[in-house]
């Protein structure tokens, strides 16, 4: 049985923890609104960009000479995985979910005895992957000291990926991020960015031949790296909205748990105080009686 003093201290400590989680929840809620807005507004751009690329890839009739970024190297030997996570913790299963999804993919790649290369974006993912997959990580990027991620930052990563691709470092590139569905649900996603062409099973009945200005090759050369950056930027936006949403729910739960704990401890505290009083009374009465 803990003493009264211990109980009092524990109640005080749980209460101050509750204050912290409550504050974090409010901050997350405020940030979430902004991040969510950005993520939702940013979606049409990346979707449209992807659509244009897909339309373009349909229009190409000579796959041999098409840019490698679009159709791939024709090999499937090594994979580059870009795992995008947060730089901060205390956001529920957010980071773990991405990492779990990524690990599943890694294991599949390794089982097929293909080469695996990893780029981590954000420190939390790195921490979780370091132990098991440390030797595959070729680059670690984090934006810890940055307050807001811009398109420029995404471009930085995009250019890096394109450079690696041009050096024949990998054949396929997949990015991992959390797609923001709503505050409660974030879906970990993997998206293939290189080659940009997706294997569509659908029949292409509409044979739209585009007019290009300038030439087709020039457009593709410019558009494909841009598309990668755009997709990464989308990942950023989705991720930051998801992170805040996830943190908000996690902190809400924590606050509620702390409340429950305080209630339980207070009952305990009151009971043991009452017990002590009763005990003292009994002692006094029985002392008086024996006189």
């Amino acid at each position, binding site marked *: 049985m803990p003493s009264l003093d211990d109980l009092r201290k524990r109640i005080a400590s749980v209460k101050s923890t509750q204050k912290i989680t409550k504050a974090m929840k409010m901050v997350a809620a405020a940030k979430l609104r902004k991040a969510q807005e950005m993520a939702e*507004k940013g979606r049409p751009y990346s979707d*449209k960009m992807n659509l244009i690329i897909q339309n373009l890839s349909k229009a190409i009739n000579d796959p041999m000479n098409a840019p490698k970024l679009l159709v791939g190297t024709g090999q499937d030997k090594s994979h580059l995985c870009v795992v995008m996570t947060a730089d901060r913790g205390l956001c529920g299963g957010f980071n773990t979910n991405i990492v779990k999804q990524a690990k599943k993919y890694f294991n599949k790649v390794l089982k097929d005895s293909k080469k695996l290369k990893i780029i981590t974006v954000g420190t939390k993912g790195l921490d979780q992957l370091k132990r098991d997959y440390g030797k595959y990580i070729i680059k670690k990027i984090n934006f810890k000291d940055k307050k807001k991620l811009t398109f420029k930052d995404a471009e930085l990563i995009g250019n890096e990926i394109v450079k690696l691709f041009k050096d024949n470092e990998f054949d396929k590139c997949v990015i991992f991020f959390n797609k923001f569905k709503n505050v409660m649900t974030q879906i970990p996603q993997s998206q293939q960015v290189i080659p940009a062409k997706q294997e569509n099973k659908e029949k292409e009945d509409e044979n739209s031949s*585009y007019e290009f200005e300038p030439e087709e090759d020039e457009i593709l050369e410019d558009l494909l790296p841009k598309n990668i950056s755009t997709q990464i930027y989308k990942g950023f936006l989705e991720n930051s909205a998801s992170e805040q949403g996830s943190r908000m729910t996690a902190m809400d739960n924590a606050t509620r748990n702390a409340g429950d704990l305080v209630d339980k401890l207070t009952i305990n505290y009151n009971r043991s105080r009452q017990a002590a009083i009763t005990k003292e009374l009994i002692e006094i009465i029985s002392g008086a009686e024996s006189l």
Partner: protein
Amino acid sequence: MSEDFNVEIVSPEKSLLKEKSNSIILPAYEGEMTILSNHIPLITFLKPGIIKVSGNSEKKYFVEDGTVEFSNNNLTILSSTIVDLKDLSKNKISEMIENTKNQLKEENLDDKKRYIFSHKLDCLSGINQ
């Protein structure tokens, strides 16, 4: 009207415009072009210039670069540098002109960039008059 087609202007941050229009003038890479409905499918780049959207009301946007796709009477303009002309103040434009001038002065500029920058300069000073 049957001569209308859908226009959508999207930047990475938000969707700027989504409406019907009957004619659009674009500063395409190899010269200005006007797009009317039932244009053949088209993909092109933009150079710095002004996009004019005429529909119920006329709207003007300044762009530095971007990608345009037209198919099935849907026009999509993707640009990360698009701004409504109304939101551009004179000071802002002067500032941009200065910046462009500085960029033009730089050595070892390739022809393509030089062309783009000088074009941007012309266009900006055109607005500021």
